[in-house]
């Protein structure tokens, strides 16, 4: 239903038969992109929360969202200032590849830390520091980009997140990554369920904890990169969707990862709908909408689960 509404609602009239086809095609691509982005973010959120045994983390905590974002920005800048630099790549492919590169660099660093330090706290702090580093670097790039109004605008809209102007090539690139990521999350959900009992006990029950952690991190990297390349940095989805779903599906990840992917996709489609339907001169960036909804909802969830958090 949300999907259907997504195709129908928006600026521009469907009455004109000439424009109708194009508009519908554009909007269908946009709805698909929104759904995929939300599914990937929510699913990686659930995986990361299980992996770190902490319901308050999401993919951005590993630095992968910021890394992907920075990678995308860097490529945008490079395309503009060094046009001959990436001659064989069309921009639609270059930006996603930049995202993937950025996310993988972030994850590589986090993984290297994980191999040598067992402490989750150190891993989380590394992710946090990386995030800040990438965000500052992104800010630096942004000020470089201000020299050209056009590039500055592209960078700002990319970092705020936006699903407008999705190209079919982008969808074709992201789709297999995200579907594979969700299937992988389902595959690793058994080990993640075992991790609920702590690393030592999980190991004594037969889990190779290091291997599980490594693969989960890699797949989270792929999913966040794909999501960021489609929709930019859309916040809070990975945090609140798993939270909101667990009361209904329980804590077992083998149920959570699938339900959360569907719910996350639907949530972002609805937010995108809102961003187009709200009266405003231009579209409100979707990252702003998810932030405006996500932050208060998250506070509410925190408040309600306060007693449990206190105990755990």
């Amino acid at each position, binding site marked *: 239903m949300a999907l259907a509404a997504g195709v129908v609602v928006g600026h521009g009239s469907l009455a004109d038969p000439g424009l109708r086809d194009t508009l519908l095609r554009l909007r269908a691509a946009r709805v698909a992109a929104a759904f995929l982005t939300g599914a990937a973010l929510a699913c990686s959120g659930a995986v990361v929360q299980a992996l770190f045994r902490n319901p308050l983390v999401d993919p951005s905590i590993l630095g992968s969202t910021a890394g992907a974002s920075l990678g995308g920005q860097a490529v945008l800048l490079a395309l503009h200032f060094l046009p001959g630099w990436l001659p064989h790549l069309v921009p639609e492919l270059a930006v996603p590849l930049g995202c993937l590169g950025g996310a993988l660099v972030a994850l590589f660093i986090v993984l290297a830390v994980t191999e040598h330090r067992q402490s989750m706290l150190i891993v989380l702090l590394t992710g946090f520091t990386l995030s800040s580093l990438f965000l500052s670097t992104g800010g630096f790039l942004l000020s470089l980009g201000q020299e050209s109004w056009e590039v500055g605008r592209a960078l700002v809209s990319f970092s705020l997140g936006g699903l407008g102007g999705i190209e079919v090539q982008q969808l074709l690139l992201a789709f297999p990554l995200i579907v594979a990521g969700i299937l992988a999350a*389902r*595959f690793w*959900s*058994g080990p993640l*369920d*075992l991790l*609920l*009992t*702590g690393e*030592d*006990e999980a*190991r*004594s*029950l*037969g*889990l*190779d*904890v290091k291997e599980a952690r490594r693969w989960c991190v890699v797949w989270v990297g792929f999913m966040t990169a794909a999501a960021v390349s489609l929709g930019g940095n859309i916040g809070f989805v990975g945090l609140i969707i798993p939270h909101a779903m667990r009361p209904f599906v*329980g*804590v*077992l990840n*083998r149920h959570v990862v699938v339900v959360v992917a569907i719910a996350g996709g639907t949530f972002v489609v609805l937010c995108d709908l809102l961003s187009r339907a709200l009266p405003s001169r231009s579209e409100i960036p979707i990252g702003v909408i998810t932030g405006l909804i996500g932050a208060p909802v998250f506070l509410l969830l925190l408040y309600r689960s306060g007693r449990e958090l206190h105990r*755990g």
Partner: protein
Amino acid sequence: MAKALDVREVQVERGKRRVLQQISFAVEYGELVALIGPNGAGKTTLLETIAGFHSFAGEILLQEKPLRLLSPRQRAPLIAYVPQISRLDAPMAAIDVVRQGRFCFRNGFGGLSPSDEAAVQRALVATDTARFADRPYTELSYGERRRVVLARALATEARLIVLDEPSSSLDIGQSLALFDTLRTLASQGHAVVLVLHHLGEALRFTDRALLLHQGRRVALGRTAEVVCDNVIGPVYGVKLLADGHGFHALPRAIS
């Protein structure tokens, strides 16, 4: 005869402290061995080392296979470990906790086979936990949780079972049922090693006892020969008085 567990000259360090020194002992199939000693003696560390948690010097053989060479997945079907305190703190159904015991047998996307489910059911029955199998683990009492974690270990059907203070926080009825279950398992050919603080339980229910003190093996032998005043007394700093029904411990100064 084949040994279920063979520990040779094992030494373990935690942090900078040497917590276990020169520990050697072996356990055969069919016997119940008590691990006793004062707080901090190294009992938990010894069990955790056998379960593969710590690096160690020396050699440990699980069912004749060197522990060091086993991957977690190869090790899990050989040894079932019941922790002193489980770190599990998730509101999952008790039966799903017990199903975790079959993890090492699953493949691919992780469905359990009918024989896995049968093992889970047997473990639920053996621990008298079937009644609350569907209730969330975190809503059970501490004694009930301990029995669920015991059921998870039994569900592995490993022939070597190590348990850390399994009878603490169980009521007397459940304690008796626990020792009954363990004895039955031993008579079916399992080997059982368990940490006990209650020396009366050790005397009554176990075949042999290993006494640890400050990380060293102080005594190993038939439980009745280890749990007696001249061995126990100096280690715990107490005087054991045996009478017709059992024994009492008194502070050593009084005697």
